[in-house]
């Protein structure tokens, strides 16, 4: 399967810049998720790749072939929509066979490929049903089979799970991932759901206001966000502003002091003393102690604070804790629930703190 390359892609709607000079490469057989909030340009990018929109600038290459000006029907791209877009006047069989009939595939071959595609999405025996006779999950699987049966060079999925209920959505994430890996088809997946992106993707491209802000594996994006937007968009994050006041080059640590005198030690090999930084801390990386520990853990940040409030989330309690002038969110087990105004002690491993240069 060929990869996909976007070079300096831009798309404007009037004065609004929907996609701004986007450079992105999607490797052969990889599933790349375009992730971002509404209006970040992810769907516009996908529509440009599909040929449903013409970019104002830039080029699109599918493998070595330049497809920027090709109409959608000549790109060999399979497309799955949020609303499934199954043609209601056709049976499941006809929905799948349509693309093959357009390619003048022999009838026996069409039957074989439709059967195979339906088996692949576990819907054998549903050939004669109409879309209205299927559940949402089944319709989405038919839509996936319809996109795959034409053996596209590239699979594009535009928020395909958004209309499904939470449980089905979670099941389908794994199904899509497994199917994509089995077929080895290069895929672009658009979503605003970070959990979906983390589960499904080989790599994630984060878009914000039409620009690409970070590309990386789910773990890289989660653990090493490149800027404050990414840190805030993926997962829960607390932010603290400060300046690097000391560094230990041998150990690769720096110390950040906030304007209210709070000091935090973090790992960084690149940032220098005097650099203003944003400190990003995930709630699950904070350990909470209701009482001051007799022995403070070595080589870790030790802070004290006051519980503002806690929200019970089932498996954890999400606390907001006032530390100096900063509010940190921390997740703790549900064993002993802390009360508002209670004094609490926190430890944060330096390795778990992300520093973002301002």
């Amino acid at each position, binding site marked *: 399967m060929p990869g996909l390359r976007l070079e300096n892609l831009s798309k404007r709607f009037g004065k609004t810049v929907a996609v701004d000079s986007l450079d992105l490469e999607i490797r052969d057989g990889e599933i790349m998720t375009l992730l971002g909030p509404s209006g970040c340009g992810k769907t516009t990018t996908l529509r440009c790749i599909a040929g449903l929109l013409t970019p104002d600038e830039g080029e699109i290459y599918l493998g070595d072939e330049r497809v920027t000006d090709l*109409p959608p*029907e000549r790109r060999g791209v399979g497309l799955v*929509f949020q609303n499934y*877009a199954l043609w209601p006047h056709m049976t499941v069989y006809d929905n799948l066979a*349509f*693309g093959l009939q357009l390619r003048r595939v022999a009838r026996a071959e069409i039957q074989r490929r439709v059967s195979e595609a339906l088996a692949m999405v576990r819907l054998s025996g549903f050939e004669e049903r109409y879309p209205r006779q299927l559940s949402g999950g089944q319709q989405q699987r038919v839509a996936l089979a*319809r996109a795959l049966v*034409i053996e596209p060079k590239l699979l594009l999925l535009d928020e395909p799970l958004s209309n499904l209920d939470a449980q089905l959505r979670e099941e389908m994430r794994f199904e899509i991932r497994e199917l994509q890996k089995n077929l080895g088809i290069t895929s672009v997946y658009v979503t605003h759901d970070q959990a979906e992106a983390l589960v499904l993707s080989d790599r994630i491209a984060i878009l914000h206001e039409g620009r690409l802000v970070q590309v990386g594996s789910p773990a890289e994006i989660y653990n090493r966000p490149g800027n404050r937007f990414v840190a805030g968009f993926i997962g829960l994050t607390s932010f603290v502003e400060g300046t690097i006041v000391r560094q230990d080059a041998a150990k690769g640590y720096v110390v950040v002091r906030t304007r209210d005198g709070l000091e935090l030690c973090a790992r960084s090999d690149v940032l220098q003393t005097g650099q203003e930084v944003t400190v990003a801390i995930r709630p699950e990386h904070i350990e909470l102690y209701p009482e001051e520990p007799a022995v403070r853990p070595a080589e870790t940040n030790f802070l004290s604070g006051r519980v503002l409030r806690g929200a019970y989330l089932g498996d954890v309690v999400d606390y907001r804790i006032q530390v100096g002038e900063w509010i940190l969110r921390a997740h703790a087990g549900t064993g002993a629930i802390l009360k508002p105004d209670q004094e609490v002690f926190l430890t944060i491993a330096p390795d778990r703190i992300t520093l973002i240069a301002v």
Partner: protein
Amino acid sequence: MAEVTAKARRGRGGGFLPFLLLLPAVGLMLALYAYPFVSSIYRSFLGSKGALSVANYAKVRELYWRDVFFSLEISVLSTALAALVSIALAAYLRLSTGWFARFIGAIYRFPIFIPFVVVAQMMRTFLAPHGLLNIFLAQIGLVNIDAPLELLNWKGLTFGFVWKQAPFMALIVLSGFEMVDDTFIEAARSVGARLPQVIVRILIPMSRASISVALILAFTSTVGTFTLPYMLIGGQVPTTVTVDIAHRVTYFGDYGVANALGTLSYLMVLALAIYYLRYTVRKGIYEYQEG
């Protein structure tokens, strides 16, 4: 027990009230539509002495049989051509976004608001032996002006009907096309469909209800139009049933034959009306089941 009876009485009164409220509308419908309709059919079976007879139909068979088929043929041909034009126009307006499409979208409705009598006058000027069309064709060398195209016949009549009905049909068809979500079209294009295939395989089947309504309304209107055939082909043989009806009433005061001709017109549209009613009823039940 007494309370239950009182409630039941109130219930019966409440049940009757809607019918009372509907009575004026139903009364008007019966007086203005049903009575003349039934009466004209009944009178078509009355002979000169007031007895039941098929004499009027025998006269229609003898004098106007060719016109009955001519009316049917013209109506079917005009409606079919108008349907093709309207579907092409609606598809263009649905799938195009350029300035020309917007311009066409703004002006295509104008013929709907022009009365048939004005259309007829325009067509006479346009299609006459020395009318605008023949003069234009002569100027570009396609026609000898001394032997112009004869268009004040079934051809001109068909042209007039199509010119008048196609925009009206396009309005209905386009509303159907507009209801087809873009993603259905995009999905078709992504699996390889070119625009003609999108129109034929996706847009038209998904807008079958709108197209059916447009066909039925245009056909019914065409069958019943008097002014356009009267002013374009008048008393030529063959002519339309509506011209014959006017002729029988105006020159002979013969309402019996006129009613028989009218009844045959009803029959022409009856088949379509039955289809339309069955289709809408079935659609209603289907939608109910879906809900």
